């Protein structure tokens, strides 16, 4: 039986794989896409139910998803089963690896926060001396951001901030609430910018590759999607040293299969792509594959405070975003480097746990505080360090017999100092704006909680210090591209999806040029 061969094999169907398919197929490239999960019929897979109808009344089955803080009893089935696809780490240094396996990937569930990186991130080493620069800058990626943003319909307001470049926004002209105006005035007095959230509106229920990228790719007739295909490793032509396909396991039957292609694109998510490469034992002449794992620190409910003025939530929106405002001059103004952002709201209701008391007294206080509570999620940059690493566990395999990842990753002093600064600053702003603090803390969730894993196949100009070149192309194997967040050199404080999409589009266009020129 003659083996089918495609121009490009794309592994993963989320933001990065979806963008590769969208870009390549519209230019006539025949693509095969493998995804480890099913193509979900959302109408049949979900139903509104009452908590008391569920076995654990909404508490969730104890111990079922110990690393997924986002899991509830309602959504537990949407996450990867940790028993089916486990991973390992030292109990003292947990990593919350939050995974989705279904066509569309994590783009089905992301928070839609849509930011560009700035040259404070692309050229971070130039600014403060730590780590490495990216081999590209904002100007180089800007045309791709500008094409991605309209596809995802990013709403926002142009602010002219160097640390958070503007994009092609659907203008958000909504007014602020009275309490937000008080907060903004205080922030302005300290040279801190407050912006409207920049968020992908998408279409209908989703802002996902499933509805924004893959349908157009399918319409070309050039895309074949195979769900439930769990990739084991990539295969290499012994004569040329080039990759020529992938071995995969059918998720239902466990049948072993092989898919063949002229070019391979990994877009399986930062850590799954890295795992595939490590299990394939390729693309690692630099020795940095799996190193420099980083994400963003997340402190949720870092400050909970109550507005003491009446009617503060009237007049407009009470949610805002404060982009990085520290270390913008010399890069070393504080006792830490880099920076953080606030995603905050001033018109919520505090969780009962933050309100002292119980019984009728507590219920009365909660009723009084309804719509008056400030709360913040602090999102801080994590330095990309060589010693934060994933490797292949020598013993444990998943349900498909594929060796799993072992994590060695922890935050350091820079992150700790940054979060303390962030908590203190937000509390000061709230207090100055007329809020009274109910609770505060600066403890981040374990690494991984942000679902922004980055950096384990970092790009760079020097093949001895990086896995990929500036086109997301393997230094070692020229027909291998990795287009997800693993290519990041630094992640900044910004949610990475817009950057991942833009890099994937850019890499795919370069790939087409190289294929046309018969260079690959």
């Amino acid at each position: 039986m003659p083996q089918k061969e495609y121009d490009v094999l794309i592994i993963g169907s989320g933001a990065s794989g979806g963008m590769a398919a969208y870009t390549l197929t519209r230019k006539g490239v025949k693509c095969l896409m493998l995804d480890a999960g099913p193509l979900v019929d959302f109408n049949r897979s979900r139903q509104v139910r009452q908590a008391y109808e569920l076995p654990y009344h909404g508490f969730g089955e104890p111990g079922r998803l110990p690393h997924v803080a986002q899991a509830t009893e309602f959504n537990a089935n949407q996450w990867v089963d940790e028993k089916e696809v486990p991973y390992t780490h030292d109990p003292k240094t947990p990593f919350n690896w939050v995974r989705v396996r279904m066509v569309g990937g994590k783009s089905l569930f992301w928070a839609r926060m849509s930011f560009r990186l700035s040259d404070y991130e692309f050229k971070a080493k130039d600014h403060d001396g730590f780590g490495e620069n990216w081999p590209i800058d904002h100007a180089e990626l800007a045309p791709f951001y500008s094409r991605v943003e309209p596809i995802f319909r990013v709403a926002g307001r142009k602010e002219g901030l160097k640390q958070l470049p503007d994009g092609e926004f659907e203008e958000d002209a909504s007014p602020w609430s009275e309490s937000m105006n008080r907060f903004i005035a205080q922030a302005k007095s300290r040279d801190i910018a407050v912006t409207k959230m920049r968020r992908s509106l998408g279409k209908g229920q989703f802002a996902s590759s499933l509805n924004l990228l893959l349908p157009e790719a399918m319409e070309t007739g050039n895309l074949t999607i195979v769900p439930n295909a769990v990739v084991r490793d990539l295969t290499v032509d012994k004569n040329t040293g080039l990759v020529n396909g992938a071995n995969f396991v059918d998720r239902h039957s466990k049948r072993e299969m092989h898919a063949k292609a002229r070019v391979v694109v990994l877009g399986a998510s930062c850590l799954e792509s890295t795992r595939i490469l490590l299990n394939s034992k390729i693309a690692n002449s630099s020795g940095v594959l799996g190193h420099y794992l980083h994400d963003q620190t997340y402190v949720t409910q870092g400050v909970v405070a109550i507005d003491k003025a009446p009617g503060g939530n009237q007049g407009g929106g009470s949610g805002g975003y404060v982009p990085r405002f520290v270390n913008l001059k010399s890069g070393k103004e504080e006792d830490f480097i880099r920076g953080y952002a606030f995603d905050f709201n001033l018109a919520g209701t505090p969780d009962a746990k933050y309100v002292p008391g119980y019984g009728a007294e507590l219920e009365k206080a909660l009723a009084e505080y309804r719509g008056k509570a400030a709360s913040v999620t602090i999102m801080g940059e994590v330095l990309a360090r060589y010693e934060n690493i994933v490797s292949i566990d020598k013993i444990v395999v998943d349900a498909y017999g594929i060796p799993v990842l072992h994590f060695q990753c922890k935050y350091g002093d820079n992150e700790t100092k940054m979060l303390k600064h962030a908590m203190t600053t937000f509390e000061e702003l709230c207090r100055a704006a007329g809020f009274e603090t109910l609770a505060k803390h600066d403890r981040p969730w374990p690494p991984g909680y942000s679902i922004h894993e980055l950096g384990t196949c970092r790009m760079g100009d020097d093949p001895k210090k990086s896995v990929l070149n500036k086109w997301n192309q393997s230094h070692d194997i020229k027909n291998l591209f990795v287009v997800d967040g693993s290519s990041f050199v630094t992640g900044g404080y910004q949610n990475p999806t817009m950057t991942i999409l833009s890099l994937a589009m850019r890499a795919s266009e370069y790939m087409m040029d190289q294929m046309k020129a018969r260079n690959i």
Partner: protein
Amino acid sequence: MKRRRFFHILAALPAASVLHGQQAGPAGASPDDLPKLEPSLPDSAADPVPHFFTAAQFAALRKTADLIMPPVNGSPGALTAGAAEFLDFLIGDSDAERRHVYRAGLDGLNAQAQKRFNKPFADLDNAQADLLLAPLGQPWTFDEPDDPVARFLRAAKADVRTATMNSREYGAGRRFVGSGLYWYPLD
């Protein structure tokens, strides 16, 4: 398999494939023609049998639950919602640390009640019990309290409220309380 789920699946199957070996219905018959049965949940038809806590611990838990979430403004409280009975099941199914927090805390409450009032916590009047629940009046801190009673009370405050507000009794007539978009297991 729950009956409601069974009928959900049944309704999604092509008529010819319903129940292996059974003849297909008349031409044009639809699975939608099947009668819609409304099954009941076990909680509405039977009573739970607590088995995890000792009698003394369970009595203290019921008293604690009643104090944390009494009936307020016409809403059912923890006792009506069966919060303590549900927590007996939930905590009994949880990891060793969570079980210890509850058991040690409830034992501590009973010991304090015995020492100060010469009777178990469940038999205290509310004014006496309030004195032992004083740790709940402290401001929230990120770190768990070291004191076993304070630690238990903090956990119980959250769990009793959730168990009450997610109960059928509390949710009756409230559209958005304790509901959510449930995901079935993926195919």
